[in-house]
């Protein structure tokens, strides 16, 4: 773009950076109120059981205990869920996973509440349970959730699958398995709730969607939403995991019943045990290509283990299935995705939302296919890459901002530059290079998704932006300030962004799906533009000129030698504020339930990653020597934020690839960070390069679009391809722990031995 911007596109530190570095940022747990109670949750030790009776009298009599509450104390609806509300806030008669909530204790101290928790007697009748999603699909499996174990079935149907495989010169297929993953936000779930003199409810919480907190608390208490006000406090990460306000509901119920302020804060183990995870998948995929290396057909069955509750399972598997063909044009597609219930911790939204799992399967098969066809993996990718003329799996054609081929060409140069390093492999090690690609529709794709912003210009040349897209630490508040500042000709520190208060900020749906930049960025920009138009019109009248001859900069308007401060302009018009509202609602068509066809996203983000890894042949441990993350972001609103997000997404993907796996024994088996292994600073690739591709999105604010999940999407695929390339065996299961890779190396050794004999 040739337009020179003053504020957007410039690297600037996040507006919250200094307060966080100095330890001054106020998180929910930093708050406390007089007479505040501490709330603890009693959770089921059984994966599946009927509740015959709950005796609370002994707990009630413990010193310092103010209330013990169960399902029957809920005045309104006893249900919750980010999208599908199929989980009870407190289980009334049935528990469906070890960790399901059964009762609350409110005490004067946390210690008192904990002691009393152990005195609640629950009479359970244990029921048969199932953990494995494939077993859950068998005819006589225990029923993990009423209505059957298939929570949802979503499909994509394009072309003629039989004919497609008929044209194929090579066909590859495999089963791929991915782990259940924890978000591991640094701040576990926390909420504080109090009632005011009128009985209205105030909530302070760590959340990705303050308005959903409001809706759920109001519904549980049978109150109008107007009587609940939620303020999102500084939030220590969410990554999709803070979209179900359970802690908020527990604190609100106690506050409502006792009239006293109440706080819930989960410790790490409770967060790991109770709150939802990313879906583990079993993927059976088959892919064919003709002699020229053109993909002809894909057949896929995706089984996502959604655990005890559907939560967001339907939306997650919809995202997966609609992204089954990745960055490629495949004319014939048959894909079926299932969200399957088991008696395990529920699974829902997490950064990636079903895309990293399918990208792992698809990109692995692309490499296998290239091998069969005798093509370079990047060459096969290039021959099938999407461009402005070819549709993705949903039939959608992106008319602009789809630089896949350019990215693949750059990747080719990078791979060539890495190749000499393969010759420097030390003894006892194996090196390999892998490439992985991904595409991602921005925003929720099952329904249209709208954002609303209210922008106000004050006479002193400052502005307030109210927009309900909370910042979880990713930097969106900073970028929204930049957008408004650019449009209004102000310095960025003259703009205050309020996203965290339901009484002020309009509902913009959740901070999720990489949607804030694209949706709210536009809403803010449009509202600011409307203000600018009004100001210029007023100024044009003063200066007796045309509106487009007026300049607006630094809180003043000017036309040639004439100038006027905004204060003076406002005064002459008896104005104290100019406020405008605007929305952004991209024109989309949700995928058809039978065929998956539609136009589900306003724009897409593309990523191509490259890894050079070294595998220890003895231990199976994988080390990443170089990692290149290439991401297409439309246009950067703030390069520092973009780079930070891409580093974070890449490292989060590295956990998915190498070490993270929530294991189930009865409930979550590894409920500490000593056993649930996220990458540490020692696990960062020896060299990490971020390469941002700018190809403006015409419908985005200043050409920008979302990218935060995209930076994670292809990491598992890329690493698996690199490791497979290194060891000469196809990796089909993540994470690639030393033990798993060691097993593959050993099996390969045995196979070679057999072949020799």
């Amino acid at each position, binding site marked *: 773009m040739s337009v020179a911007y003053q504020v957007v596109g410039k690297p600037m530190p996040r507006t919250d950076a200094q307060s966080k570095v100095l330890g001054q940022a106020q998180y929910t747990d930093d708050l406390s109120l007089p007479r505040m109670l501490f709330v603890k949750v009693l*959770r089921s030790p059984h994966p599946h059981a009927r509740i015959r009776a709950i005796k609370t009298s002994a707990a009630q009599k413990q010193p310092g205990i103010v209330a013990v509450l169960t399902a029957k104390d809920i005045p309104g609806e006893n249900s919750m869920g980010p999208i599908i509300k199929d989980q009870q806030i407190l289980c009334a008669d049935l528990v469906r996973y070890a960790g399901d909530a059964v009762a609350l204790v409110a005490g004067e101290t946390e*210690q008192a509440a*904990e002691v009393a928790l152990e005195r609640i007697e629950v009479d359970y009748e244990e029921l048969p349970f199932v953990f494995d999603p494939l077993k859950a699909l068998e005819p006589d499996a225990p029923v993990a959730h009423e209505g059957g174990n298939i929570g949802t079935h979503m499909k994509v149907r394009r072309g003629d699958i039989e004919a497609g495989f008929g044209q194929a010169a090579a066909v590859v297929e495999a089963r791929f398995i991915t782990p259940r993953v924890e978000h591991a936000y640094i701040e576990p779930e926390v909420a504080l709730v109090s009632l005011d003199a009128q009985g209205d409810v105030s909530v302070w919480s760590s959340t990705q969607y303050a308005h959903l907190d409001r809706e759920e608390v109001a519904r549980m208490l049978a109150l109008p939403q107007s009587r609940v006000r939620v303020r999102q406090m500084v939030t220590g990460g969410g990554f999709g995991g803070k979209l179900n306000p359970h802690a908020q509901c527990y604190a609100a119920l106690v506050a409502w019943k006792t009239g006293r302020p109440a706080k819930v804060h989960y410790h790490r*183990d409770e967060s790991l045990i109770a709150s939802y995870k990313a879906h583990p998948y079993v993927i059976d995929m088959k892919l064919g290509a003709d002699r020229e290396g053109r993909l002809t057909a894909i057949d896929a069955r995706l089984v996502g283990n959604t655990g005890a509750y559907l939560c967001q399972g339907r939306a997650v598997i919809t995202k997966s299935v609609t992204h089954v063909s990745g960055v490629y044009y495949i004319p014939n597609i048959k894909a079926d995705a299932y969200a399957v219930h088991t008696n395990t911790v529920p699974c829902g939204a997490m950064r990636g939302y079903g895309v990293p799992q399918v990208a792992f399967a698809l990109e692995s098969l692309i490499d296998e296919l290239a091998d069969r066809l005798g093509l370079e993996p990047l060459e096969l990718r290039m021959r099938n890459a999407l461009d402005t003329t070819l549709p993705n799996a949903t039939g959608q054609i992106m008319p602009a901002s789809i630089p896949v081929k350019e990215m693949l060409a750059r990747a080719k140069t990078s791979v060539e530059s890495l190749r000499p390093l393969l010759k420097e492999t030390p003894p006892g090690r194996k090196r390999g290079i892998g490439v992985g690609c991904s595409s991602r529709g921005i925003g929720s794709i099952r329904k249209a998704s709208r954002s609303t912003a209210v922008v106000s210009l004050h006479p002193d040349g400052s502005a307030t932006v109210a927009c309900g897209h909370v910042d979880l630490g990713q930097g969106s508040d900073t970028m929204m300030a930049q957008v408004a500042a650019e449009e209004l000709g102000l310095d960025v520190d003259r703009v205050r962004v309020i996203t965290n208060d339901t009484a002020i900020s309009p509902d913009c749906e959740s901070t999720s799906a990489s949607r804030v930049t694209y949706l709210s960025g536009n809403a803010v920009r449009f509202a600011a533009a409307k203000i600018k138009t009004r100001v210029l019109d007023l100024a044009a009248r003063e200066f007796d000129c045309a509106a487009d001859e007026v300049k607006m900069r630094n809180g003043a308007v000017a036309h040639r030698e004439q100038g006027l401060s905004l204060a003076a302009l406002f005064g002459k018009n008896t104005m104290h504020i100019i406020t405008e509202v605007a929305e952004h609602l991209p024109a989309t068509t949700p995928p058809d339930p039978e065929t998956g066809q539609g136009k589900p996203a306003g724009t897409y983000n593309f990523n191509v990653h490259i890894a050079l890894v070294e595998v220890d042949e003895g*231990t199976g441990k994988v080390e990443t020597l170089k990692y290149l993350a290439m991401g297409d972001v439309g246009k950067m609103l703030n390069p520092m934020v973009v780079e930070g997000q891409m580093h974070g997404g890449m490292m989060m993907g590295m956990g998915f690839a190498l*070490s993270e796996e929530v294991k189930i024994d*009865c409930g979550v088996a590894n409920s500490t960070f000593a056993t649930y*292994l996220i990458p540490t600073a020692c696990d960062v690739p020896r060299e990490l390069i971020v390469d941002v591709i700018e190809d403006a999105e015409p419908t985005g604010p200043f050409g920008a679009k979302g990218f935060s999940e995209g930076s994670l999407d292809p990491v598992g695929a890329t690493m698996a391809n690199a490791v497979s390339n290194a060891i000469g065996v196809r990796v089909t299961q993540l994470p690639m722990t*030393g033990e798993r890779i*060691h097993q593959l190396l050993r099996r390969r050794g045995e196979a070679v031995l057999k072949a020799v004999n």
Partner: protein
Amino acid sequence: MFCGNKSPMLGRLPSFDYYRPATLDETLTAMERLNGNFCVLAGGTDLLVGMKERRGRHPALLDIKALPELAGIRADNGTLCLGATVTTRAIAQSPLVRERFPMLFQSMKLLGSMQIGNRATIGGNLANGSPAADGAPPLLALGASVKLVGKTKERWVPLDNFFIGPKKTIIEGELLAEVRIPTPPPSGRGIFYKLGPRNAPEDICIVSAAVYGVPDGGANGWKELRIALGAVAPTPIRARHAEERLRGQPLEPKLVEEAARIAADRDATPISDIRGSADYRREMVYVLVKRALEQIARDYPSAA
């Protein structure tokens, strides 16, 4: 499958009585009075976590960090004396340890993050009785002893006899006061390898191995060759069968392989747990012991 016995509600630190005696005598008196219903608290990096997770319940904790007798690193005629409450990071930072006991230095550096290293003590690392204690294999290989002090008597116990089971040591109402490591001959050479699931030092090891050798100066082999293993048996162990196989012979590649195999198949008796399967652990004993022996042989080609 049996399910439902484990409460998923992990509690917080339960209440306990806390004592912080100022002298050794006060400590021993308190120990006698508490009559076994206590646990010694030094760094607490495992003890307190275990109490939170209800792995261990202790009505009283006796904090020994204030005892001046137990603090400090000193050399006594070449013997290295480590007070029980010396932190693992202090050991890792000691120039004496780094120069004369590089294997111990290595293991202390890998024992945990800086924060853990600043709290965790060498006495705690051993007295805790974990089969995966990072300090144990190098100290076993170096032939260390520990001083156990009781109200009426004190005794020295070779570390070889100290561990008796998972979380069990030979301590009986005594305080582990000091660790002593005999002077290694100048030609002695030790290697410590720790295999964790990540590159992070704070990980509990899947397997660890320490090999210590003293070449006999001639061409035929080694005066001493000790192999110790972590996390592959109910306690940290010496790999006696493997050591036996190597006795008095040069470290030829075939012999190294054979000894490593013996360590894996005969000395190690691993279990499967959340960090790794028994099978993988066994294989990793083979890999680590082989590598350590090869490294030693490379360092002293004349003895190999």
